[in-house]
């Protein structure tokens, strides 16, 4: 995969020799770019779009490694403080110079955003030390802050003040539309020409960009085409040059169409089944006669292991995901800080062992339960849920699949969480295993910012303690040991039944070369159009 990515990049670089004149790229995706205010949402698609216009403090290479961007250097200087050196000679799209004040202003603005609480909630202060130095002081030691800073977007302070958007525009405030929703002032490789959420967003290359512009795209348009088949039809009929979320079932068709190519990269999240680890009685769970079960079966590690043995993640990756997925065995994925390749072995599929474990746990006849399934947002969830249900039916667990559209699914979790068994994707924004544990595995305690996304209420005090140690440890060797310990404990206790990491797949017409990146961002400055 990585090789493919690099080859794409190399091809892009090779082609820059003859940088052509005006080249336009039309690319389409399933979901709308909601707002151009980079601090007003953490939505996946929207971020990929406003990244064209706004640079992050620390950049990402095409293989998702941290690279110097608006900050050229960063060091931990003790006292919970990271020091960032700001690049000189960077211009905003209106020609004004980027200053340390702009950086400090943006950090303070974004840290207050409710969408970035898990990433930046710990930041207390951004101090301008001198014209090119900014100190960021956190409430506690934060060894992975630089990783997080690849999601810190810098905008112009003067522009924000002039347009009355110093505060992040919030909803229901008043009737007027905040300026930053359809306008932008960043330092990115592309300038925003116009933005109509849910229809199209248009860009123009920013000639005074501080970095190289290896590609030849001079103007670009992102179109929101919600319906998958319509998107594919648009690509095949030449109305768009590129589709950034190609439906899995259409990959074959695009690959076999003369001239068309696809690019793929693993997405920075994985799917897992989450099982209620706290309630005394599981919700919507019954015995064969229809009486609610007295005990919560999911609290029994043997039942969790049985489910892990019964669900054939390989078959799901192969059939439902058409091979465009990587089976996941631990609570981390390649590219994440703290990923351990040798530990990444998934539970073996073993239906007999699953039945034995269920019998040992006191459920020789199995039981009946309900699985909540988000119908959108992740790839092919409907089919994944039904495949899981049919696999569990073979070991005696009858699962009713309860499909929910995303807003309802989110409502169920946020207002409860009211689910004892569900499918969900997880991918901590910092791309570090540490945050997989602080956000998803630690015992849920939103006030302490622990286990905020632990919707299944899994709980393990030892994991909680080890995770707390990890978050304050800077020593790399020590961290490595903690990562391994945590990942093994989580896997053996089946904090969740891991399934797979889906691929992002792009389809392109002939003559378009776009290097793919795992955060699904089309780096327009690298795209070559013939």
């Amino acid at each position, binding site marked *: 995969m990585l090789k493919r990515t690099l080859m794409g990049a190399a091809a892009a670089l090779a082609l820059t020799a003859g940088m052509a004149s005006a080249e336009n790229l039309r690319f389409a995706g399933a979901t709308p770019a909601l707002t151009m205010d980079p601090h007003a949402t953490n939505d996946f698609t929207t971020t990929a779009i406003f990244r064209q216009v706004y640079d992050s403090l620390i950049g990402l290479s095409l293989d998702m490694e941290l690279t110097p961007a608006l900050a050229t250097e960063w060091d931990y200087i003790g006292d919970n403080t990271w020091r960032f050196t700001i690049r000189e000679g960077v211009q905003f799209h209106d020609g004004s110079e980027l200053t340390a004040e702009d950086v400090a202003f943006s950090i303070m603005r974004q840290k207050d955003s409710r969408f970035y609480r898990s990433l930046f909630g710990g930041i207390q202060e951004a101090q301008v030390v001198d014209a090119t130095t900014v100190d960021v002081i956190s409430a506690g030691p934060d060894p992975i802050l630089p990783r997080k800073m690849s999601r810190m977007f810098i905008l112009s302070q003067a522009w924000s003040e002039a347009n009355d958007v110093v505060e992040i525009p919030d909803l229901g405030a008043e*009737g007027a539309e905040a300026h930053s929703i359809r306008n932008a002032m960043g330092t990115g490789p592309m300038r925003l020409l116009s933005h109509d959420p849910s229809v199209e967003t248009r860009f123009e290359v920013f000639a005074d960009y501080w970095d190289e512009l290896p590609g030849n795209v001079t103007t670009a348009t992102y179109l929101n085409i919600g319906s998958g088949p319509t998107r594919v039809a*648009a690509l095949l009929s030449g109305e768009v040059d590129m589709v950034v979320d190609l439906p899995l079932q259409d990959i074959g068709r695009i690959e076999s169409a003369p001239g068309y190519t696809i690019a793929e990269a693993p997405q920075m999240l994985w799917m897992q089944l989450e099982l209620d680890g706290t309630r005394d009685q599981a919700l919507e769970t019954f015995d064969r006669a229809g009486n609610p079960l007295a005990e919560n079966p999911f609290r029994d590690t043997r039942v969790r292991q049985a489910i892990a043995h019964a669900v054939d993640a390989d078959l799901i990756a192969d059939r439902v995901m058409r091979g465009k997925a990587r089976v996941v065995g631990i609570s981390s994925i390649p590219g994440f800080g703290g990923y351990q390749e040798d530990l990444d072995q998934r539970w073996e599929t073993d239906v007999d062992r699953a039945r034995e474990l269920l019998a040992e746990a006191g459920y020789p006849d199995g039981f009946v339960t309900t699985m909540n399934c988000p119908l959108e947002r992740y790839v092919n969830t409907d089919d994944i849920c039904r495949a899981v249900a049919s696999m569990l039916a073979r070991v005696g667990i009858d699962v009713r699949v309860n499909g929910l559209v995303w807003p309802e699914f989110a*409502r169920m979790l946020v207002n409860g969480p009211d689910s004892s068994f569900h499918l969900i994707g997880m991918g901590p924004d910092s791309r570090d295993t540490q945050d997989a544990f602080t956000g998803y595995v630690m015992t849920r305690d939103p006030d302490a910012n622990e286990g905020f996304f632990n919707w299944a209420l899994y709980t393990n005090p030892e994991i909680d303690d080890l995770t707390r140690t990890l978050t304050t440890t800077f020593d790399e060797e020590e961290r490595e040991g903690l990562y391994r310990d945590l990942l093994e404990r989580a896997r053996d206790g089946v904090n969740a039944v891991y399934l797979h990491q889906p691929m992002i797949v792009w389809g392109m017409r002939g003559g378009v070369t776009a290097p793919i990146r795992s955060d699904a961002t089309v780096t327009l400055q690298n795209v070559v159009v013939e």
Partner: protein
Amino acid sequence: MIALIAQRVVQAIIVLFVVSVLAFVLSTQIGDPVASILGLQATPADRLELGARLGLDQPWPARYLTFVGNVLQGEFGVSYITQRPVSELIIERLPATFELAGVALLFSLGVGLPMGIYAAIRRGHWSADAILSLSVVGVSVPTFVIAILLIFFFSVTLGWLPSFGRGQVVQVGWWTTGLLTPSGLRSLIMPAAALAVSQVALVARLVRAEMIEVLRADYIRFARARGLKPRVIHLSLALRNTLIPVITVSGIQLGFLFAFAVVAEAVFQWPGIGLLFLQALGSTDVPVISAILLLTAVFFVAINTIVDLLYAVVDPRLRAGGMTGRPAGA
């Protein structure tokens, strides 16, 4: 006549009241705006704060009054999702839907009328029967199936027509039109055709039925007895009397085309009101949903009131009873 107008106006007000209550109930009950806005990172404190800001902590009669008060001032609030004023969103999308429905109406009359006339004149002939059977198939194929097939053949297989969107549009004042550019016109063909198919069939059946009725009338018999040529009888006498109900019905048809545009807009990703409505329903964007419901109600009440009054003017006998010409079940 004045009494009738007064009655219709009172009725229209009642309709709007009922719909406004419905729209309001919907806006309070559907989904949970707070959860859908804040996403998974919301804390209980966030929820209380946003709830208060949206006025969700007020008792519901107070909220209804606020809602109606705002609506009367043309203030529909701000979309939760796009964070833009709802009135702006709707005004931007309105031209797309009107052009789509308008062109579909032209299609359905342009094809349906001649088919219906022919089927009436040649009643009993195999070709007329064929038209009738074809029209049954026409009303039996749902709009979305036709749309899917059109895309499959004309966009993907043949590559003749664009499969989505409005193409290039031109700004005329606040109205955006796709009727003035080649790409805009090409984009319009398939959505309008998909939308028109079932209406073509309905128009054809209606025209045939009305025409047969007219042809049986005494004055036609007299005309025949006087030896007038069939062509003259059919095209000048009969057709004229057939057209009156057809014209009034096409008013209602415009309304139904407007409603069924939802389906065509969904398949062709046509950026009109219908697509906006579906997107809003899908993301629980309550201000947008209630605004569209209210506007739809106003639109339909207006169309119906006008059509009813037209009917009364044209045919005094119909003042008391219902309308015979409405497409059954549409």
